[in-house]
């Protein structure tokens, strides 16, 4: 059982590393070269790999509302209006090229979110803190390192608050009032998270006290 779980953890870690290695450069290249939708194929393949191997770790990425929002806000407008004039070969709306451009933009946004979650969840705070501390001060460097690692926690707060609101009726009635409630709840959860983080920082401040506790236990249990 333990061996099985460690194997699955290893497989997930491997999937994350491979997906990060493919997604990052692929998305960057595809973003710089907007007129080559074929460049998005590696990014799309990496997203499929994440969906198959590690879907539970990225609930935000495979949320149906995100997909619906992307379709309404990105794919449909680009398909109907066309691509922006700043691209090298702008397409007028309504045709297959415009639809390809819209789908490409949606894949780009999904790949960007995946890269954010992948990088945000696996950065070592101490290393980032040391590196940034040289330039912007120790306290601010530490805050940057912690903040980067808190991205999944922040998204979880948003997901839980939305779920709680949906259980109480969602946005069907009193939309403005419910939106205000949602914002307040997210704010309260965020401030509670700051209290937890501050407590963790203070606990880490006194490692000597923590180290002393396990040593005392064997003495108590000894006959």
């Amino acid at each position, binding site marked *: 059982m333990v061996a099985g779980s460690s194997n699955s953890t290893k497989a997930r870690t491997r999937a994350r590393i491979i997906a990060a290695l493919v997604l*990052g450069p692929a998305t*960057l290249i595809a*973003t*710089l070269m907007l007129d080559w939708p074929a460049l998005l194929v590696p990014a799309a393949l990496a997203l499929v790999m994440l969906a198959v191997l590690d879907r539970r770790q990225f609930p935000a990425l495979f949320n149906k509302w995100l997909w619906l929002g*992307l379709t309404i*806000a*990105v794919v449909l*407008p*680009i398909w109907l209006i066309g691509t*922006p004039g*700043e691209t090298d070969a702008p397409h007028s709306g309504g045709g297959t090229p415009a639809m390809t451009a819209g789908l490409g*933009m949606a894949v*780009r*946004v999904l*790949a*960007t*979110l995946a*890269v*954010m979650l992948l*990088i*945000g969840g696996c950065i070592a*705070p*101490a290393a980032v*803190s*040391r590196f*940034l*501390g040289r330039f*912007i001060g*120790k*306290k*601010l*460097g*530490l*805050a*940057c390192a*912690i*903040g*980067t690692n*808190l*991205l999944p926690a*922040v*998204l979880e707060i948003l997901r839980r608050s939305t779920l709680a609101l949906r259980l109480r009726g969602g946005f069907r009635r009193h939309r403005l009032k419910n939106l205000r409630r949602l914002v*307040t709840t997210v*704010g*309260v959860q*965020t*401030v*509670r*998270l*700051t*209290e937890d*983080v*501050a*407590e963790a*920082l*203070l606990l*880490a*401040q*006194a*490692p000597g006290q923590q180290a002393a506790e396990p040593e005392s236990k064997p003495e108590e249990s000894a006959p």
Partner: protein
Amino acid sequence: MEDSTNTIRSPAQAQWVAVVAVFGAVWGAAEISLGAILRSASIPMHGTLMTGIGIIIMLVARRTLASSNQRGRGACLAVGVVAAVMLPMSVTRGIERAVIGILAEAVCIEFALWFGRPARWRYAVAGVLAALVPLVQLLAMLAVQYGPGALSSFRTILLDKQGGAKLGLAGQAAGTLVGMVVVVSSVYGSVCGIFGWSLARRILQRLGREPE
């Protein structure tokens, strides 16, 4: 966590770091997700829209710190720095402009709140200053990209009676349009500032703390 043992020396410092990290992460997450979508779709005035979110987050962070016997000085600027550091994770175009904008907004809010005690009107003024940053940044980017000549052409279009004709507008319509954009941005900024003030009060009351 070795570094934190050397850096954090008191509960107040731990709270400062925690508030800056968490609220910076919230703003960074908003910029990376919603901001990336708005930037990719080239939606007009997306910078101003995202500025509103940033104003509210910075002001709530500031008032949260101010409520716990800390003045909260430097918190808004630090929250902006954390959000700006996280922005390169978003592999979309125009990140450098967004980073400059975030830092400039943070500096404006910090400047407006540096002197005196926190008050609703002060938060509104801070919001107005920050909301005008995207417009000023647009002019600054014009000057950087095309030289000072671009600014003088812009001034001609705005102030000359026939200037609007270059854009196909009658008389001083161009100036009026720009004036309207400035007014709308200012009102939007002040509303966000006041909303940030009242949201922080609601949050602190819900947590049983006394807002300052």
